[in-house]
Each structure stands twice: as C-alpha cells, then as structure tokens.
C-alpha cells in the first residue's frame, strides 16, 4: 500500500515535468490526503506498533 502511495507522488512529479501544473497540484493534493489516511492507519494506541 505504501508503494502505491509513492506511485501517486511520482504521478504528481511527472505531471509537473510535463508542464501540467494544475493536474500536478490535483494529484499532489490527492496524494497528501492519502498520505494522511496512511498515517492514521499506522497510528495505534499500542505502543509496540508503528515504530
């Protein structure tokens, strides 16, 4: 799952490289929201997790 997240970020960078500024910002914002969701997934009350 984390690799897919990096892939979305790669898409944002590639869109910027192609000069598609608005598209890159949209993809980047989507990636940021997904990153927050991933962060929430890895936050646990159990201190032995999420090292």
């Amino acid at each position, binding site marked *: *799952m*984390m*690799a897919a*997240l*990096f*892939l979305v*970020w*790669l898409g*944002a*960078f*590639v869109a*910027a*490289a192609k000069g598609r*500024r608005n598209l*890159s*910002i949209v993809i*980047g*914002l989507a*990636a*940021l929201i997904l*990153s*927050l969701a*991933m*962060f929430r*997934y*890895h*936050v646990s009350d159990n*201190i*032995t*997790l*999420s*090292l």
Partner: protein
Amino acid sequence: MVGTWDTRNVVRLFNGVGALVMFSVVIGAYAIQFIFLEPPCPLCLLIRIGMLATGFGLVLNALFGPKPIHYGFALLGAIFGILVSLRNIALHIVPGTGSYGDAVFGFHLYTWAFLVFMAIVIAIAVVMFFQRQFDEPTGQAPRIVNLVAVIALAVGIFLAAANTFTTAVECELGPCPDNPTRVL
C-alpha cells in the same frame, strides 16, 4: 540573453535549492538504509513522503514561478511531516522505551526530520514576506535558475520512483511491517 536577478528569479532559485535540501535528506535516509542496513519503519517512510511533498511545492515554485498555492502545498507537506515525526518522537520520549535506529550527530533521524520541517516552515514564512515575487512580470530568468529547477524536479522524480520500488520490495502489497527486517 542573460536574465535579470529580480525578486521573482531570486526566489525561484531559493525554492529550487530548498527542494534539493529536502530531497537530500531522503537521499541521506537511503544511504543509512543501504550502508548501515537499517530498514525504514512505516513512520520513517511517511516522513520521506513529507519531505517529497514539501519539496514538490518548492519545485512548483522553481519551475512555474512563485505562487501562494505552491507555498501552501509546501507548508501542508511540512506540517504533515511535522505530525509524523512528532508521533515518532512521542513513541520513544518516555525513558526506557528505546528508540528506532541509530543516532546521527546525537539525534535520531525522526528528530532531525522534525527540525528540518520546522526550519523549512520558518524559511517559507520569511520568503513569503517579499511581495514583489508575486507581482513582477515573468521575464527572462538566468540560466542557473532554470537549471536548478530542472535538477530539483529530476531528483524528485528519481526519489519518488526509487521509493516506489524499494517500498514495494520491502512491504510487498500489504501494510509495511512495524519492525521491518528486510532492507530490500
């Protein structure tokens, strides 16, 4: 034709260098991963994403010229990184709870990451004082400005692709292990 060093172009260069600084931290993390054989934890990977996100906003400034939306993006990325690194610090803040990885110059990597994110937030706030960067017309930029922007973009693409590959190998299709043992 030689470009002019107006506020806009100076700020573009600053943003390109700032993006390279953020990306160099991820390169450093890669060096520790492969030289010291220290696999990244899930929160460490999320900190890398924070670095990429902040660098992405700065790259947009360097490529397309400074705009508030680019700075906003960089700030959101930095705040995300601060959240993750603070969480990582908090996990080990109680004496006796150990730490993840070895210390570098006295601090663990997640502590360094927190300091870097705080520094970039302050730097962006200071650079945003210069209103003329948003008002000046788009003119011919010195060659070094465009060169640094393209290099920063290339490094960002390389790091996003490299992390996609190494994370896919480390974590496979499921969630990343809390205590990873595989470097690659």
